[in-house]
């Protein structure tokens, strides 16, 4: 919403200074986005000084001037004027300027092989005089310190640009803004000057509103103005239109726009000679078409509110007019429309057809249904004044009466909500100034809501009106109340925060990436989840919700590798989506690691990252979060984007169905498809939802502290087992032989090759044996040794290696 202070003052008596008005607007909820002059074409003309003059190499009469235009560098301008000389102060027009005399638009151009940036102007070209040779010569006394400044003074008024919230249609007109300011004490609202117009004859074009179902138009006012001379608008009107950054079109169009901006009363002018007999306001039928003023042909659906005549649709009521009946400079007779359209109908139609116009913007927010006559009156008056013509009587058709809404307001509600007191008298004054009719009954007010305030329907709306006009700075700051209802974080949230920092502490950089991703990459990681398309993605490569965190992580890993980083550890903790209903999402940690360990290290051997790096980070994270390593169980099963032989899954318990984590090397095919260039790439994922509620609180889960001081013994074993026999099973077999004696089992070597059959491998273990009752004797140890060997051999088919 744009207007000038001068325009505002047509509605408001005020002694306030501009900056006070600006401040007040923001204070009462009409946010000032900017307050500045609209830039003018004439701003391109600068005072300039010729620093140097050279002869043009290819033309005797041309010179190349070095011109100081007040910027860091001088510009080169080719000039043919005989008076161009070193030291001359003159007027420079840059590329893009339009020369006032001939409306020529300047561009950077080559003149006989030399590039000229702009032009030095003569007085003739600037419309300053009728003739004279050569470029303008400015008096150095007056202009010596003005180099770079605008040559023409910008006479346009500063424009206020307000950002009006959707609840305030009344402030989409200058008068509404003036009313709010008056209520806030900035001045007094002027009465609308209701100059009488000479009325001649009735409005002869019949108007009817058809009572269709959900008819979008309830009131249609109109008048005929005959024998007009449409023309360019007078200067004052043009200036108003231009000051808002719009283009003047013709007096009739400019006047309707002016009334809309002034009173928030959209109007439409038809060339009445182009109307076929009568105006019929009705619902459209599917398939009807019409060409609108934006030169587009719209195909209509059922039940859109149209203004039509005997030949068909003239326009979409309250949204856009039609080309067939539009006014032109040769229009002689016009029909002026001032109607009321229901916001819901306007919104539905404009959404379906994707049309956005100033009228639509206003009607969908709600226009004052009682502004029909005022609008017609003001516009007809101006048209008669500027274009001449005879104005008919106003014809107003309506299919429902304008309701005056009333509400009851308990004054005490104000203090209850706002937290501070205000005198009843002041409440009443504010409301009256805003246009309410107020009658007081004890502690209650009965309020008649002004028809231009469709946003006000209940008492809380009244509280808002009073508090915003009175000022938010009256609300006192109350100390925060510290009472607590629930713990800050629940168990799942605590886990989230813990795991996040746990993973980061292992050298991973946390990142946050979009929840959406490129379907092409997502397909590599989506497994059995549904693809969830975004109907209106911001770009085609962010077209689906992510089914895995790895799609974005690998994408950005590649970007960093391309930046010449090699050893990268990245992770993200956030949502992945299983399907598209609310809640069908999981919280997952995804982490990846590329390159080598100890690259370019003077004292450690470097090696590529491998599956056991990923496994360590995943397992350690779980241990740090309080899960017991003893119970964790590893399976080979893993999603297809991992290397099939070098990956696995982690279960909190052997009997669990859902793994809590996956780890492994990323599948080489995927590395190839995404075109990732690194020595090795591993990753892991932890599913927080499956970790849920598996854990007792520490205070409840700590067992009694028990230890043994009797001597420990270590025994080494080497078993030859089938190649695909799992180390985890071997440890499990040994550990469970006698849990009171076998304290730990450590694998210290795995060997395949010479001296071992091809389908076998040798696993060497160290077993720690300790009793909590006595120091074990050699015979006890021998007994347990034998038991270990025999149990392993029978349960695993292994052979002890001699």
């Amino acid at each position, binding site marked *: 919403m744009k207007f000038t202070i001068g325009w505002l003052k047509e509605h408001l008596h005020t002694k306030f200074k501009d900056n006070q008005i600006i401040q007040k607007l*923001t204070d009462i*909820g009409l*946010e000032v986005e900017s307050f500045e002059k609209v830039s003018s074409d004439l701003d391109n003309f600068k005072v300039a000084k010729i620093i140097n003059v050279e002869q043009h190499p290819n033309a005797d009469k041309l010179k190349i001037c070095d011109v100081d235009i007040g910027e860091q560098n001088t510009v080169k301008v080719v000039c043919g004027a005989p008076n161009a000389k070193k030291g001359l102060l003159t007027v420079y027009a840059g590329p893009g300027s339009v020369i006032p005399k001939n409306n020529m638009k300047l561009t950077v151009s080559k003149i006989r092989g030399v590039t000229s940036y702009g032009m030095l102007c003569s007085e003739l070209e600037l419309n300053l005089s009728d003739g004279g040779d050569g470029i303008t010569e400015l008096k150095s006394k007056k202009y010596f310190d003005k180099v770079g400044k605008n040559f023409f003074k910008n006479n346009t008024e500063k424009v206020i640009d307000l950002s009006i919230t*959707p609840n*305030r249609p009344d402030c989409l007109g200058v008068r509404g803004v003036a009313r709010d300011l008056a209520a806030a004490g900035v001045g007094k609202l002027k009465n609308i000057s209701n100059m009488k117009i000479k009325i001649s004859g009735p409005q002869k074009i019949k108007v009817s509103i058809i009572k269709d179902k959900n008819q979008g138009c309830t009131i249609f006012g109109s008048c005929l103005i005959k024998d007009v001379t449409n023309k360019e608008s007078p200067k004052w009107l043009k200036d108003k239109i231009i000051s808002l950054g719009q283009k003047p079109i013709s007096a009739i169009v400019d006047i309707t726009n002016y009334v809309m901006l002034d009173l928030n009363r959209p109007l439409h002018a038809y060339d009445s000679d182009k109307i076929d007999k009568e105006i019929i306001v009705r619902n459209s039928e599917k398939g009807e078409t019409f060409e609108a003023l934006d030169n587009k042909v719209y195909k209509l659906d059922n039940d859109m509110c149209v203004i039509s005549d005997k030949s068909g649709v003239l326009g979409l009521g309250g949204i856009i007019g039609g080309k067939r009946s539009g006014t032109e400079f040769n229009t002689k007779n016009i029909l002026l429309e001032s109607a009321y359209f229901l*916001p819901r109908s306007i*919104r539905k139609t404009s959404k379906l057809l994707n049309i956005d116009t100033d009228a639509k913007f206003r009607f969908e927010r709600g226009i004052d249904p009682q502004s029909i006559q005022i609008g017609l009156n003001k516009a007809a008056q101006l048209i008669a004044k500027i274009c001449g013509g005879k104005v008919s009587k106003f014809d107003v058709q309506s299919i429902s009466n304008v309701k005056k809404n009333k509400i009851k307001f308990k004054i005490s509600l104000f203090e*209850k*909500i*706002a*937290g501070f007191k205000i005198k009843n008298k002041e409440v009443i004054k504010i409301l009256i100034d805003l246009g309410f009719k107020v009658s007081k009954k004890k502690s209650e007010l009965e309020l008649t809501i002004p028809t231009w305030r469709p946003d006000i329907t209940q008492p*809380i709306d009244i509280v*808002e009106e009073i*508090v*915003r006009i009175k000022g*938010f*700075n009256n*609300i*006192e700051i*109350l100390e925060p109340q*510290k009472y607590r*209802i629930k713990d*800050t*974080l629940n168990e799942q949230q605590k886990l989230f*925060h813990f795991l*996040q*920092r*746990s993973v*980061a502490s*292992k*050298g*991973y*950089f*946390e990142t*946050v*990436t979009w*929840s*959406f991703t490129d379907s092409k990459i997502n397909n590599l990681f989506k497994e059995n989840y549904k693809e969830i398309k*975004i*109907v209106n*993605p*911001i770009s085609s490569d*962010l077209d689906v*919700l992510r089914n895995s965190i790895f799609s*974005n992580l690998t994408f950005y890993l590649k970007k*960093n590798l391309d*930046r010449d980083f090699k050893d*990268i550890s*990245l992770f993200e903790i956030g*949502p992945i989506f299983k399907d*598209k*209903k*609310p*809640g069908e*999402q999981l919280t997952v940690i995804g982490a990846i690691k590329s390159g080598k*360990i*100890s690259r370019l290290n*003077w*004292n*450690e051997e470097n090696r590529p990252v491998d599956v056991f790096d990923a496994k360590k980070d995943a397992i350690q994270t779980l241990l740090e979060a309080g899960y017991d390593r003893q119970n964790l169980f590893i399976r080979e099963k893993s999603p297809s984007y991992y290397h099939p032989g070098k990956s696995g899954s982690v279960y909190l318990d052997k009997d669990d169905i859902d793994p809590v984590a996956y780890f492994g090397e990323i599948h080489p095919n995927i590395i190839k498809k995404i075109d990732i260039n690194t020595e090795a790439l591993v990753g892991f994922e932890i599913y927080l939802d499956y970790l849920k509620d598996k854990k007792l609180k520490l205070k409840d889960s700590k067992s009694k502290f028990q230890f043994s001081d009797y001597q420990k013994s270590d025994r080494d074993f080497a078993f030859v087992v089938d190649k695909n026999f799992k180390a985890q099973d071997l440890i499990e077999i040994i550990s469970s032989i006698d849990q009171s004696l076998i304290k730990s089992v450590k694998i210290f070597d795995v060997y395949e090759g010479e001296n071992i059959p091809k389908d076998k491998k040798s696993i060497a273990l160290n077993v720690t044996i300790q009793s909590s009752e006595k120091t074990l004797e050699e015979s006890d140890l021998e007994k347990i040794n034998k038991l270990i060997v025999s149990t392993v051999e029978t349960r695993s088919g292994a052979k002890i290696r001699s």
Partner: protein
Amino acid sequence: MSDIKKIKNEFLHKLNADLDIESINQIKSELFGKKGKISNSFKILGSLPTEERKKFASDLNFVKNELQEKINKKIQEIEVKEINSKLENEKVDVTLPERNIVQGKIHPVSQVIDEISSIFSEIGFSVEEGPDIENEHYNFTALNTPDNHPARDMHDTFYLDDKKELLLRTHTSPVQVRTMLKGKPPFKIIAPGRTYRSDSDQTHAPMFHQVEGLHIDKNINMGHLKGCLNYFIKSFFEVDKIKMRFRPSHFPFTEPSAEVDIGYELKDSKIVIGEGDKWLEILGCGMVHPNVLKNVKINPDKYQGYAFGIGIDRLAMLKYGINDLRAFFETDYRWLNHFGFDPLDVPSNYRGLSR
């Protein structure tokens, strides 16, 4: 008698010389060996008259101990010397780099969420969360933004179906609705999380973060709202004074509604919060609209309270001098390293919010 003294003097003299370990062993055996001088002296003990024997034995033992001690000391000296000379050859260049350090980083958004949670924890708020995918009811309708309401145009929404029923939440406010539906008042929650709008340029990202606040009880008014935000902003920016301005605004789900600006100034092109005469918009807030309370079956005549929504990324930018919003989500390793936080640097109220 004099023999013992003689032995003593002779050998003390010998031992004062600069000796190696072998010569000391030699001396040792000369004294205490089978035929050593001290050993021999003990042998004559028996032949002495009783009256002398005691004195002789005592003198001899004294000398024996003295010499023994001297020898031990000497040996120790030599050992220390040997170790020292060995150490000289074991010197390494300690300016060589240490073994690899791995230092991970926490993203500024996560850090700031933790800071915010810590601040609100202090005044009794708990953290709630909600799904990223919402239906239009929770995201709009229940929040007093019916389908035909122009306020819906304020949000550029990502939709997941053609009927526009499923969408990515455009704000964290639906968490208010979900929280109030599943519980009973009073409510005192914050809800941080991801939010989405189909809007993308230098200052807008299609995904960003918000934290929602909601406090509903029997007599919570705008003074409490102001107090809560005043406390939060001061705590967050770790300043004693803050300039705060409430501007009336409009959100369908609160009334009265306001946008809040904080005062700042530019010092050496860095933003200094709390001083100066420039204003920066940082959040929207208001009293929860009675219609919203009715929608979640709470009687607005009995309960009332405030809600607010703050842009987390914006706060992080202001506090830590980050210029570009888009960089938050671009995973540039250099950026993450530069703006990331050490994982052990956990914001808390007793240790302080930030280092």
